[in-house]
């Protein structure tokens, strides 16, 4: 007889999805820091794209407009890259976000100690538990990061309409905006997975005897 326990992939996804749905509010809070960080990332990058479009289409006038809108731009510059300042703020916000995710996920693992231990008593292997946590984080990461990216992009478009007038919307490179949203979503997924790694390993390597020991 084949002495192997198993958990089909489809079933893992189902369990992970149900677990998120059942703890929706908890998941929402875990994801919220990711949504905010990714929204900020996408807002800044989309804002740069818009400023770039303004620069391309308004000639000499553009420098004055952009400066008034708060962009650090030297007269004579031909493009707007991420400034060093922007880059640092983005990196910092993403770091804080990962720490937030680690914190929230560690709490989640502690809350679910008994559940994890019980699963192990029922025959779950370490990698089942790991897979469940990683799947949950992927679903949260995908949903949260996409929502964040959309929010960031939409806010950038709205605020630029106010700053530069509605004509700017006509000249925008929409494929690049879409690419920015896609990239920001990918970054968000990566951050979510990075944040769950340590908590998931901690959960997976827990001894089943803990399930018996937990007192309430």
């Amino acid at each position, binding site marked *: 007889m084949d002495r192997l326990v198993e958990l089909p992939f489809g079933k893992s996804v189902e369990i992970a999805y149900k677990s998120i749905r059942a703890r929706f509010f908890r998941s929402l809070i875990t994801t919220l820091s990711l949504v905010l960080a990714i929204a900020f990332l996408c807002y800044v990058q989309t804002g740069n794209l818009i400023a770039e479009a303004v620069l391309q289409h308004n000639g000499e006038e553009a420098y004055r407009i952009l400066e008034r809108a708060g962009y650090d731009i030297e007269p004579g510059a031909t493009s707007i890259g991420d400034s060093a300042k922007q880059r640092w703020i983005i990196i910092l916000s993403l770091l804080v976000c990962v720490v937030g995710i680690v914190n929230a996920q560690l709490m989640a693992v502690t809350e679910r100690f008994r559940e994890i231990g019980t699963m192990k008593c029922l025959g779950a292997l370490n990698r*089942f538990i790991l897979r469940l946590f990683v799947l949950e984080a992927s679903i949260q990461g995908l949903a949260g990061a996409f929502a964040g990216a959309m929010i960031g992009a939409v806010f950038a478009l709205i605020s630029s309409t106010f700053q530069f007038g509605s004509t700017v919307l006509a000249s925008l490179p929409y494929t690049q905006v879409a690419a920015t949203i896609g990239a920001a979503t990918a970054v968000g997924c990566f951050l979510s997975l990075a944040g769950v790694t340590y908590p998931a390993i901690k959960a997976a390597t827990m001894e089943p005897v803990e399930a018996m020991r937990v007192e309430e």
Partner: protein
Amino acid sequence: MTEQHAIIRTTNVVKTFQLGRHQLEVLKGISLTIAAGRYISIMGPSGSGKSTLFNMIGGLDKPTSGKVFIDEVDIAQLDAYELAWLRCRKIGYIFQTFNLIPVMTALENVTLPMIFAGTGNDEAVERGMELLRTVGLADRHSHKPSELSGGQQQRVAVARALANSPAIILADEPTGNLDLTTGEEIINLLKQMSTERGVTIISATHDFKMLNVSDEVIWIRDGMVDKIEQREELNISIGTIE
């Protein structure tokens, strides 16, 4: 023949825990043989090493020295996969705190061990419903644990423990969190499973109601076996207790 078959055998099991600088010897050499198909109660005051012994028997913990054989297999020799398989197929666990997975329905809780064992979804659902019917909860299969009473949760847990038709059911204070009547219901249910299905039931308890249905009672005191009483002797000693 089945009566003679030793499902669990421990030889001189010693377990020590490191508490800071001190070594605490919780089990001081326990040798036991438990025959298949019996209903065993492990009794003892808290701190007697009862739970530790219980965890050893369940393959949840490994002894410091000595050996634990489950179905003549030394559990110290098993790797993680084999241990998981053992927990999944050979042993059913029942906990004092029920330990149902809170996000799953009663039916999903019962079918989870079957999924782990590689049972197809349809078959698992069918067998899960049958088990819930056995414990009298078929009509509540779609309820979450939070929507069930303590006694009902424990009955779901009994159904879950039986999911893969294990040879052994380990029950750690199964009636500890239940009132008198529901506790009795669970005890009777376990006894019924033991007689109908020939499952070996081992339960750690200090509930004297358990003694009435036990075939054998193992008393643990200070990390050692104090005495082992068979059913026949038991009635007399209960008489003296009460």
